[in-house]
């Protein structure tokens, strides 16, 4: 394990995610959305979108693989069973629709320790196939000490 100052700035390889209609519908239903833009292709097209629209918080899904890989970075040695999600932020650009190919880059921005707990903050940037930034994320994780 490297020291925490050396850990800041660490990156893992950008991760790709291809947005499917099935994934958008499954996600929308799982979080209780009923807006037809997310569920009904005709409704989405009539409203002027190319395909089913992903709810904003679907960012957690398309950026999820990059975040999962970052947490598993062996240089950090994080005990995933002691991990708690402390906070989350997203900023959104253009809407994501089914068929989009999203690439997410992620970087470890902050590391700190307080009372035996380790705090990590990653920042992610997700772009679609037209190189438009569709969202930026800030992911805060707390790792509790093992008793």
């Amino acid at each position, binding site marked *: 394990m490297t020291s925490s100052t050396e850990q800041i700035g660490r990156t893992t390889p950008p991760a790709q995610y291809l947005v499917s209609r099935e994934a958008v519908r*499954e996600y929308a*239903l*799982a979080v209780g959305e009923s807006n037809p833009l997310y569920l009904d292709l005709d409704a989405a097209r009539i409203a002027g979108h190319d395909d089913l629209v992903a*709810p*904003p918080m679907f960012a957690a899904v398309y950026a999820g693989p990059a975040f999962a890989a970052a947490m598993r970075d062996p240089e950090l040695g994080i005990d*995933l069973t002691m991990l708690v999600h*402390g*906070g*989350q932020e*997203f900023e959104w650009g253009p809407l994501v629709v089914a068929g989009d190919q999203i690439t997410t880059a992620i970087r470890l921005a902050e590391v700190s320790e307080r009372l035996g707990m380790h705090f990590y903050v990653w920042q992610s940037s997700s772009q679609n196939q037209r190189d438009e930034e569709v969202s930026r994320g800030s992911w805060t994780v707390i790792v509790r000490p093992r008793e």
Partner: protein
Amino acid sequence: MTLLEPGSELPPLRVIPDRGVTERYASASGDSNPIHLDEAFAKSVGLPGRILHGLYTMALVARAQTDAAGGPEKLKRLAVTFRGVGLPEAEITITSTVTERQGERLIVTATAKQQDKAIIRNAVAELEAG
């Protein structure tokens, strides 16, 4: 859709997550951490039982915003801090208040409460006005 301005309360969103919600969210999101799916495992790491995914609760906060503001393109930013843990089968209430207007953006603060306990507190959303 109601006219939103500083001081406006957004319509509250009330949801009772059912027993299966963590399974469905795990499948939809790819986050299958056993603290959300396995009662015995969750208890073994000091939790009261299977807990909701924080990002599921955040999605409810987001829905309260997009429903009130007129669609997904209106939500430009959302920042939350997770407090305590959310549990299945108990009602969650999302309340949101517009606190100020900055140019074309409305700033909203929101809370997710379950059994009188805030599980998301001081959430801040930015909505496109108009």
